[in-house]
């Protein structure tokens, strides 16, 4: 912008230079900020890499000493004894049994609550119930553990006096109630995402609310409901404190919920509470157990992803 067109004075040149320099500084600053934000986003990738690295590194040492066939087929779990056995089946049976009890409670109740809140409940009730369920999911699990050990177990013992003080049943029931909010809130979101036109079509054909809910809305929302179930399963499998407190920490190869048994997670807690030297075989077992847990939830997640893909309905 010189005074005479086509000619630039010395002052103009320096001003333009300054402006260019300012713009360059601005561009560099913008790029730098973007880089910093990108690095922050990368932390999640580093976390995953870190988890896999730690679990695999220690497990490789572990499987160098314990053959993998023994790990999968041995029927005893006594890693800290002189006569050490490393049969993960023993811990897996506890995990599967307690998860099964929890899911028998959480999936039907969670689904019923979701259908009720999405299709039946009056607006007011839903506005109160949703935050309440959220709070129920926010109670610390150690508190649920206390509740399972000192409230639910004595209650069950009145019905069935032979029930031992530590058992998978009470832990599983409380775990199931803890999981209800996760199942119900995601299922409900999925059902509410079903377009109104589908329901209106169903009502126009003369269907009742219940028929519309079970034959139109639920099938249409199935992919979302499936992911709610998958989340419930991985919650149950990974739950730690309720089982560590209420199910006892005795390794026990059983599928009977009335017995005490240790789960994979409870075993990790038990070892961590003791004073195991870094690098000992006992220290490495918890990483092998953790790797098993991680693979189990990974299989669940992949299965859920495939289920979602094949049932996905696009509107």
């Amino acid at each position, binding site marked *: 912008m010189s005074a005479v067109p086509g000619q630039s004075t010395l002052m103009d040149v320096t001003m333009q230079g300054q402006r260019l320099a300012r713009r360059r500084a601005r561009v560099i600053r*913008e790029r730098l*900020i973007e880089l910093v934000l990108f690095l922050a986003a990368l932390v999640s990738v580093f976390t*995953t890499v870190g988890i896999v690295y730690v679990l695999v590194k220690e497990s490789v040492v572990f499987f160098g000493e314990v053959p993998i066939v023994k790990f999968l087929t041995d029927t005893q779990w006594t890693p800290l004894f002189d006569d050490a056995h490393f049969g993960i089946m023993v811990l897996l049976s506890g995990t599967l049994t307690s998860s099964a009890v929890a899911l028998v409670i959480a999936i039907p*109740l969670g689904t019923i609550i979701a259908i009720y809140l999405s299709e039946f409940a009056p607006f007011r009730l839903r506005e109160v119930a949703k*935050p309440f369920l959220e709070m129920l999911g926010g109670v610390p699990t*150690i*508190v649920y553990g*206390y509740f399972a050990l000192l409230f639910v177990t004595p209650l069950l013992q009145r019905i069935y006096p032979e029930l031992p003080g530590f058992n998978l049943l009470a832990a599983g029931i409380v775990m199931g109630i803890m999981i209800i909010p996760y199942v119900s809130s995601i299922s409900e979101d999925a059902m509410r995402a079903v377009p109104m036109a589908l329901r209106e079509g169903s009502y126009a054909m003369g269907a009742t609310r219940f028929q519309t809910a079970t034959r139109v809305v639920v099938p249409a929302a199935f992919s979302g409901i499936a992911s709610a179930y998958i989340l419930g399963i991985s919650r149950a499998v990974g739950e730690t404190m309720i089982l560590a407190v209420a199910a006892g920490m005795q390794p026990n190869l059983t599928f009977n919920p009335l017995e005490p048994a240790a789960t994979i997670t409870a075993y990790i807690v038990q070892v961590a509470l003791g004073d195991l030297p870094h690098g000992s075989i006992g220290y490495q077992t918890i990483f092998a157990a953790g790797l098993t847990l991680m693979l189990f939830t990974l299989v669940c997640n992949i299965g859920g992803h495939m289920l979602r893909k094949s049932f996905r309905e696009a509107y």
Partner: protein
Amino acid sequence: MKPTKDLIKRRKRWDAIFAVCGLFALMIGVLTFAALFVDMALDGFGRVSWDFFTTFPSRRAGEAGILSAWVGSTLVMLTTAFFAVPLGVAAGVYLEEYAAKNWITDVIEINITNLAGVPSIVYGLLALGLFVYQFGLGQSILAAGLTLALLILPVVIVATREAIRSIPQVIREGSYAVGATQWQTVRYHILPYSLAGILTGVIIGMARAIGETAPIITIGALTFIAFLPPAPLQAEPPFVSFEWLFSPFTVMPIQMFNWTSRPEAAFQSNAAAAGFVLVIMTLAMNGLAIWLRYRLRRNIKW
């Protein structure tokens, strides 16, 4: 005519039956929570007193308190927030405002979804292998704070993204039209408008972190601590000390776990009292988040 009427009546009856079932299922949740809360209040309320908050744990149940536990929890929460909030918000802003649609973004997004489903105890193993031994942080407040920060990072990121996504495109266009750069748009428009939504997510994440027990036990936090970490403020220069970051510690849920696993009834009422305090704290935090979100939904008029 008669059979049709009967049919309709029968179908309608199913509606009524299911409505009752739904209410009943909901009541199971409500009743369980009521039983849990009342049971703990009855057992523990007698132990909640000023002394309970100002004394250390003890071998004698009647004299034991939660001083080291609540101080430890507070310090760990501070550390967690210090790492999780800037990292989570920055990651959320990047994914919503900057990220190109390419495979790197896809990888990051898949990672965040997966991390939200990883059991918390696995984070404990990560921390044990990496923070405690590899980085040599030991069983310190810093190691615990970092672990919980990684644990709640997905919660903060998802909340940030949702809050940012609800800001209409017009706001960004207006900002660019008057010559703002991308960062200026984020700094002066996107962040202020999404602040309440982000705050909701942060509070929910912190409420989850304060109740987490398993990962902290896994890194080997001690259950019996009868001293406080060094004070962050000191009388002599340089006045501020970060020694507390490397101090051994205990937290509320671990203290409660320790008391719950003892057979004596007296310790169990201590556990009930600690649990009562813990539940009140998490309920207050969740309640605050829900209230914030409610106000937010009501007040926004774009």
